[in-house]
């Protein structure tokens, strides 16, 4: 459960986000949709505690991310925008490193890593060094790394970036499985089709503000649009459209 209210943050003269507010509930997939530079990443970065907001509040499972970032980090799994992994470590070691940093060790850690390797279907590269991994393999390792401490909430920043069709499908299946297991999944994207396929709730952001929010059906009704794409274009108020 993620709750955001009136969140604001400036970088110099640029107001990256200005009063963003929404709710992402457990057992549902919430999509942060918006054109490039709309403030999606900044919002997520505040949520996963690497940026401090200058206005508003945000909480994860009732924990204030600004006042108690360490406790908040225990309940979230993060796939940042640039999900780099360590090239000299194997897939298994990459995952185990984060498990250890989350306080796991010994037998439970090894078991959890095994579990993730089979769940994410990366057995073939588990003991290989990550140097030559494909983008799809890298994202999977980064996802396993984010899931290693069994977080209730997942924050994914454009997870399908650079993935081919098969890898995208696998990712989609994984996100749906997490939803089915009762997790709260919040992900950002600028790809309409992806959001339409997956999301139970959509939050459309532009120029650092939430311009529309609701289920796909609600958005279609609100903008009297035949498709989500039309609703999106109507919501952001110009014909900038999607890349």
């Amino acid at each position, binding site marked *: 459960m993620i709750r955001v209210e009136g969140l604001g943050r400036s970088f110099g003269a640029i107001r990256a986000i200005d009063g963003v507010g929404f709710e992402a509930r457990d057992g549902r997939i919430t999509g942060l949709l918006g054109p490039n530079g709309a403030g999606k990443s900044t919002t997520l970065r505040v949520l996963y505690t690497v940026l401090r907001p200058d206005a508003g509040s945000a909480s994860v499972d009732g924990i204030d991310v600004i006042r108690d970032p360490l406790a908040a980090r225990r309940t979230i799994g993060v796939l940042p925008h640039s999900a780099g*992994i360590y090239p000299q470590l194997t897939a298994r070691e990459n995952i185990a490193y984060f498990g250890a*940093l989350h306080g796991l060790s010994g037998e439970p850690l090894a078991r959890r890593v095994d579990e993730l390797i089979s769940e994410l279907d990366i057995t073939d590269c588990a003991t290989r060094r990550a140097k030559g991994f494909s983008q799809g393999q890298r994202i999977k390792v980064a996802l396993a790394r984010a899931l290693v401490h069994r977080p209730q909430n997942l924050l994914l920043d454009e997870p399908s970036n650079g993935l081919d069709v098969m890898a995208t499908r696998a990712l989609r299946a994984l996100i749906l499985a997490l939803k089915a297991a009762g997790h709260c999944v919040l992900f950002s994207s600028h790809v309409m089709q992806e959001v339409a396929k997956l999301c139970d709730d959509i939050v459309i952001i532009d120029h650092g503000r939430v311009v529309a929010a609701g289920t796909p059906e609600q958005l279609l009704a609100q903008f009297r649009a035949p498709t989500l794409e039309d609703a999106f274009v109507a919501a952001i108020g110009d014909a900038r459209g999607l890349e």
Partner: protein
Amino acid sequence: MRPVAVIVMLKELRESLRDRRTLLTSLVLGPVFAPLFFILILKLTLARSVTAQDEATPVTVANAAFAPNLVQQLRENGLTVTLRDGTEQQIRAWISDTDGLVVLRIPGNFGERFAAGQPAPVVIYADGSDSRAERRSARVYQAIAGYSRLIGSLRLQARGVSPTIMHAVVVDTVDVSTPSARATLLLGMLSYVILLVTLLGGLYLAIDATAGERERGSLEALLTVPAAREQLIYGKVAAAAVMMILALALVTTSITVALRYVPLETFGMTANFGPGVAARVFLVTLPFALIGAGLLTVVASFTRSYKEAQSWLGVVMLVPTVPIAIASVLSVQPTAKLMLVPSLSQHLVIQGLMRGEPLAAAWVLLSIASSLLLGGLLGWLAGRLYRREAILG
């Protein structure tokens, strides 16, 4: 559960030790090539000074018939005399054809002037830009000057004058340097090599763990683990320090082994670098590794990319040379105050150990304590830097 800093340190070390290129530049290149290079210089210097003394000096004498006694004197002085007659033009041609050739030409009026007790001329031809010819011509000159003094003395004696009248002042030089102290300059280089190789040991890890982590895009994920950011960076500083300590151990060992194969005594030096001295050098340089790790990590934390970090750290690597260079130029003596200057204090302590004149224990402790303090301070600063949001770049 292990402390976060330890987990991070072990992971950084594992990564560095796996990367062949990092391993090569950090732990192999420095410790292997530094002493080899040093020994090469020593051997070359040694070879030159030995040949300069013992080498037979060949000299070609043109028109030897005009001065048979002089030629005999040259032979008695150990010069290898070749006789070959020719004009001045021919002599110049010979020299341009043959490297290192020295030609002595005796003019036709030599015998006449010599017999009359007048200064008799001879001419030495040599290429002044050829260092071998230069050295040989100096020996020929010395031999002729000796002959000239001998004849002069004999002439004075023949006229009833004591030859000592020619020597108004007699100069005697006394060399008071001890064999070890004479080696100071060369061994001063050695302590610098030790410090530099130590720094080099942690250079790549420091870059990789900071600028590299950011460039690869793994920093943001790392910052979302439930640990204080300074714990993460302490682990990285510690890993860089461990690499530096490894490099230090390797380089002191390799120098100890290498110096056995250099006949330092020929130089008038004592090779005061046995295992005992090496162990002490290692121990007094340990705190320097902490300073190096802190310094490189702090500087690398400011940079935006791997490349930028590399170029900055290239400059930073020179920082420890500055106090050593200034101290060498001014030939400063160790004082308690200087023991507070990192790199210089290690240099002075190592020098003392190698000269067989170890510094007072209190000074050594001062060097260790002040370096540890500065190293700790730099580590703390790195922690502060990682608390800032700007670290995300």
